[in-house]
């Protein structure tokens, strides 16, 4: 007996109600608040802000709550909200050199002006489950230090000596109208500014895998972390009516500058090369991975060989780095496809009949 599929609308409404109930979980357990997520799941919030391309910790925390902790779903919520917001303009480039850093390390020098500052890092924790956290306790207190002094960039020291490639000169055209892949369709080959935007909002896991592959020999990156810094920077915009720049707020950024294998020739003395990563919020893994991928993608301008590694392939990297695009296309295959499947089914049946007829004729 055939029962026609009806009631799609009621099924959808009921599924949403079930989802809402499941999201809340056991009602005898207190409900999470958005400020709790913002304060205590800060690195998840940072990832949602970075890949959602929207710096708003409260909205990111809300999205995480609504998404039941599925960070890609939370990123999607933020993206869909972000796309409805008006664009007022673009800020001046932020000065990460003047960052109020909470963490700053260099792997290339034992000590550097401004010092090595570990900050709130997992680096030297022993990964032993802290069962004390299952109980609520007093808020931990860290010893306070004096305010940190200025931290000149490590790359500037190398730059002064000429042993690292100079930073590319500012392009006034790009400064005035930075490329934005959320407003213009991506065109390939993409310039570095656009590539960096794509990587900054790209999937952390995808970049991690690509960067790792380049370290293991698929492509050639041999990076030293020249400097990794995390902290707040001012965001300044020019107000045309006033004719001056105003700081509109501060954002936390993670910046990674890598120092990479050198290029050089008989006519040009050897120089180290740069890879760059900049991510919203505290996200070291992503910033380091980004700087490796950025460096690998620069193979052509640096006169290196294309070894055919995925990380060197701009189109491969840029077209597949976005997790919202990727998860949408991946998951859409669970939608009804029975019309196409029916046409394939008939084709396969027909081909099989033809093949069997031919076999019988041969016997």
């Amino acid at each position, binding site marked *: *007996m*055939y*029962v*026609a*599929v*009806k*009631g*799609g*609308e009621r*099924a*959808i409404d009921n599924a949403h109600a079930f989802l809402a109930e499941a999201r809340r979980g056991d009602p005898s357990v207190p409900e999470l608040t958005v400020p709790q997520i913002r304060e205590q799941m800060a690195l998840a919030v940072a990832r949602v802000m970075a890949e959602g391309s929207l710096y708003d910790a409260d909205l990111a925390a809300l999205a995480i709550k609504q998404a039941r902790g599925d960070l890609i779903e939370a990123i*999607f919520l933020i*993206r*869909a909200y*972000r*796309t*409805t917001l008006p664009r007022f303009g673009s800020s001046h480039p932020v000065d990460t050199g003047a960052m109020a850093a909470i963490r700053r390390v260099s792997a290339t020098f034992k000590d550097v002006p401004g010092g090595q500052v570990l900050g709130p890092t997992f680096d030297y924790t022993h990964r032993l489950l802290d069962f004390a956290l299952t109980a609520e306790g007093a808020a931990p207190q860290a010893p306070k230090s004096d305010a940190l002094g200025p931290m000149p960039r490590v790359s500037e020291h190398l730059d002064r000596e000429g042993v690292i490639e100079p930073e590319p000169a500012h392009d006034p055209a790009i400064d005035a109208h930075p490329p934005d892949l*959320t*407003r*213009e*369709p*991506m*065109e*390939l*080959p993409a310039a570095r500014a656009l590539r960096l935007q794509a990587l900054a909002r790209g999937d952390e896991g995808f970049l991690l895998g690509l960067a790792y592959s380049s370290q293991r020999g698929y492509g050639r990156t041999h990076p030293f972390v020249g400097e990794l810094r995390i902290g707040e920077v001012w965001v300044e915009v020019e107000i045309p009516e006033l004719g001056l720049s105003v700081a509109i707020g501060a954002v936390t950024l993670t910046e990674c500058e890598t120092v990479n294998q050198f290029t050089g020739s008989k006519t040009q003395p050897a120089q180290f090369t740069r890879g760059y990563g900049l991510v919203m919020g505290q996200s070291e893994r992503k910033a380091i991975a980004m700087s490796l991928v950025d460096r690998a993608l620069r193979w052509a301008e640096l006169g290196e060989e294309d070894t055919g590694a995925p990380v060197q392939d701009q*189109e491969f990297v840029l*077209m597949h780095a976005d997790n*919202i*695009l990727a*998860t*949408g*296309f*991946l*998951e*859409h*295959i669970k*939608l*009804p*496809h*029975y*019309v*196409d499947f*029916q*046409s*394939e*089914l*008939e*084709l396969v049946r*027909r*081909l099989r009949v*033809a093949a069997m007829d031919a076999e019988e004729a041969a016997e």
Partner: protein
Amino acid sequence: MSEYNFAYLDEGTKRMIRRAILKAVAVPGYQVPFASREMPMPYGWGTGGVQVTAACLTPADRLKVIDQGADDTTNAVSIRKFFQRTAGVATTERTAEATLIQTRHRIPETPLTEGQILIYQVPIPEPLRFLEPRETETRRMHALADYGLMHVKLYEDIARNGEIATSYAYPVQVAGRHVMDPSPIPKFDNPKLSDSPALQLFGAGREQRIYAVPPHTQVISLDFDDHPFVASKAPHACALCGDDGSYLDEVITDDAGGRMFVCSDTDHCATRRAAGHAGTQAEAIA
């Protein structure tokens, strides 16, 4: 939903999309890049079609949304509801009454008429994509009308299987120039693409492309003189309305090999039944 603009998208975005549509109409079959927006439904759920629909909708429109030919599939219901909420437009399940039809994977059986717009949801707009993964390369191939690779693929199909082994998303050539992916419609629907009085628009959100077949444009399914294109379907009549000329879904009715074939186009089937046509199992859905 008063906090959102009519049909969700802001007017600037709609204008950007309309410009892309105009360009697409001017160059039939050519894939026009557009700055696809992030929509409140996932990529792969029809974001391209939804954006094109949003850019074309006017308050006077009557919208029909189908998925797999049916008005009541979950995603068709969801998209129709989206436009009811954000645009407040009238909706219909009747092909003949709709001014604008958004579809996934089918062309309605009822012939379209002048003034109607059919908007297809497109997953992969590039007909050459599975022959050449690089967009930079396929754009060059289109520019040069370099379609040899496609003909080789079709030839290899025949050499291996005795026929062209593509049953949906069957490639077409539009107005004698661009080779186009008609979206994953069954090849049964391909003849309806050609010389239609309606405007046909194709939206690929994730891939950021819009393309078009203007009214009364010739669309030819690629084939060879000695292996002509055949629009095939299941060799049955609809068990509900008795039509032996419509595209059919195969429905498994028990776990002992029982199955029945019914129209994929629910409006077509219901209209025929209302007119008194009956198939062999018409009583099954009394």
